[in-house]
């Protein structure tokens, strides 16, 4: 039982991290209907920027803030110069552009920071928790708490503020939102800022969690998060979160207990195809 609970807790942590990366993707897809593969590269950049600021200043708070600001800027650049001019073309055009952006950013990271794995020796200022015989490390607690805060803030912003209303209106229909006096391009920019900043948080958390930062750390999340937003329902943010948590749990438990002859990274896609066959609008999506 002990091992099972530890696996469960690790699974939730994995799921939380997936959720943080997937959120940005779901937000962007909700508004622009673009599969923002380069989001995973933004996440890698966030990890690197956080690490460099941490090495220079020794402050984790500055690392998080710096990473978020830098990634928000990067997100705006990608949206303005790559996606916006390509919106009028069929969806595969921005998709290929996005993949090219991702590969290019990965290369830049490799050229600047080198191809090796860097360590992220930071200690998050959270207490260790003891629940009976089970110990939650401070990193694990940090992952839970930070994910919860981010999700709560995002929920508040999208449901309680005027900006959130504008975001929801724009995601339903850009043209009509424009006609109602919403500056939809500004809304899109804000969406990219929020999504990219969250990706930076996820990047730094993953860097600390595994104590590893490397140029291709975004490759697997890049495509796995695509499967996740499909499972959750394209463009549905709550669906993306649920799907991420389920996948985190499923991966950890299945690999821990059932002897699955497939690598864990294929699991997300098998689940996705299953969901598509059974309920093609996704878990929480709507048609």
């Amino acid at each position, binding site marked *: 039982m002990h091992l099972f609970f530890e696996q469960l807790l690790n699974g939730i942590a994995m799921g939380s991290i997936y959720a943080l990366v997937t959120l940005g993707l779901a937000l962007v897809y909700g508004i622009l209907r673009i*599969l923002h593969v380069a989001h995973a590269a933004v996440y890698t950049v966030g990890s690197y920027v956080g690490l460099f600021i941490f090495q220079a200043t020794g402050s984790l708070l500055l690392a998080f803030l710096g990473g978020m600001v830098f990634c928000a800027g990067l997100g705006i650049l990608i949206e303005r110069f*790559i996606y916006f001019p390509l919106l009028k073309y069929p969806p595969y055009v921005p*998709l290929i552009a996005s993949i*090219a952006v991702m590969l290019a950013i990965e290369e830049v990271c490799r050229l600047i920071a080198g191809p090796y794995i860097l360590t992220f020796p930071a200690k998050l200022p959270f207490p260790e928790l003891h629940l009976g015989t089970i110990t939650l490390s401070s990193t694990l607690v940090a992952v839970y708490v930070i994910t919860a805060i981010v999700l709560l803030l995002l929920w508040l912003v999208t449901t309680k503020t005027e900006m959130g209303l504008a975001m929801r209106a724009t995601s339903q229909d850009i043209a009509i939102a424009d006609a109602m006096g919403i500056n939809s391009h500004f809304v899109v920019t804000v969406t990219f800022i929020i999504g990219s900043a969250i990706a930076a948080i996820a990047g730094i958390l993953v860097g600390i969690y595994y104590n590893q930062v490397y140029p291709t750390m975004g490759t697997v999340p890049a495509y796995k998060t695509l499967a996740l937003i499909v499972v959750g329902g394209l463009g549905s943010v709550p669906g993306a979160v649920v799907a991420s948590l389920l996948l985190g749990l499923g991966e950890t438990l299945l690999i821990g207990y059932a002897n699955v002859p497939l*690598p864990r990274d294929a699991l997300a*896609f098998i689940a996705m195809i299953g969901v*598509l066959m059974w309920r*093609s609008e996704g878990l929480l999506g709507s048609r």
Partner: protein
Amino acid sequence: MSSYVITIATIIIINAISVCGLNVIVGYAGQISLGHAAFFGIGAYTAALLATKAGISFWAALPCVITISASIGLLLGIPSLRVRDDFLAITTIGINFIVEAVFLYIPFFGGALGIGGIPRIMLFGSKLRGMGFFWLCLFFLVLVLAFCWWFTRSWAGLACFALREEESAANSMGISPVRIKLLAFMIGTAIAGLGGALYAHYMRFISATDFSFPVSIAFLSMLVLGGMGSLWGPVLGALILGILPELFRPIVEYRILVYTLLLLLMIRFQPGGLLGEVSFLRKRLVPLLKGLKP
């Protein structure tokens, strides 16, 4: 010609064959596929297994390879019937990852070690290598191009175009989207299988990573770059993306960066491809060609 040039040229032609198959699915029938490398891989693995485990010659195995690729294409095409556009793109990515995982984790397919010792192709009692193999690939490319040319003029080809332009309109004209989509998938994957078989016999060693998702992106990039739906687009795309990395070889460190940036610039400013309907190349070429004819 030096063997270096022959190697590059052979690989370009094999890629062009495979991209022709992708063109049938994406360019003609308008069904986005980001998992083409999986079918390329299925062809390669079938050919490799038949040659190494069953000892069947390339020529005897070829019909088998094409049938198996087409049937698996048909099978994996079925999930794609339920989904469109972005869903289809992600589903095909998923298929690519799953097929790669199967190759990598099931011992029958050689696992992480891949399959080695694939024999050379025999023709008229002599082993094909270098130039000989190049001509063989070129022969198959011409065959595939001729088939594609014929297909675009056949009823099924025209039905594909109708489906690409407007599915519901095509449906109301009596074209069954299910049949035509599956047909396009089958033809496309069969051609990819042929490319894969040639690849396996040329490389003589294959492993799962040769058919991973980035290869699918490369195929789609070639197609988009050359021009979707055009007959010569796949060849042009394979040629450009095959030669560019070789030209950048001197700038070792920055090679991939320059390559991806070029890809980005092309898709950003010429999304219809170099031979697409609105490309600057075509705008200049077509009047020129018309001017030549009296």
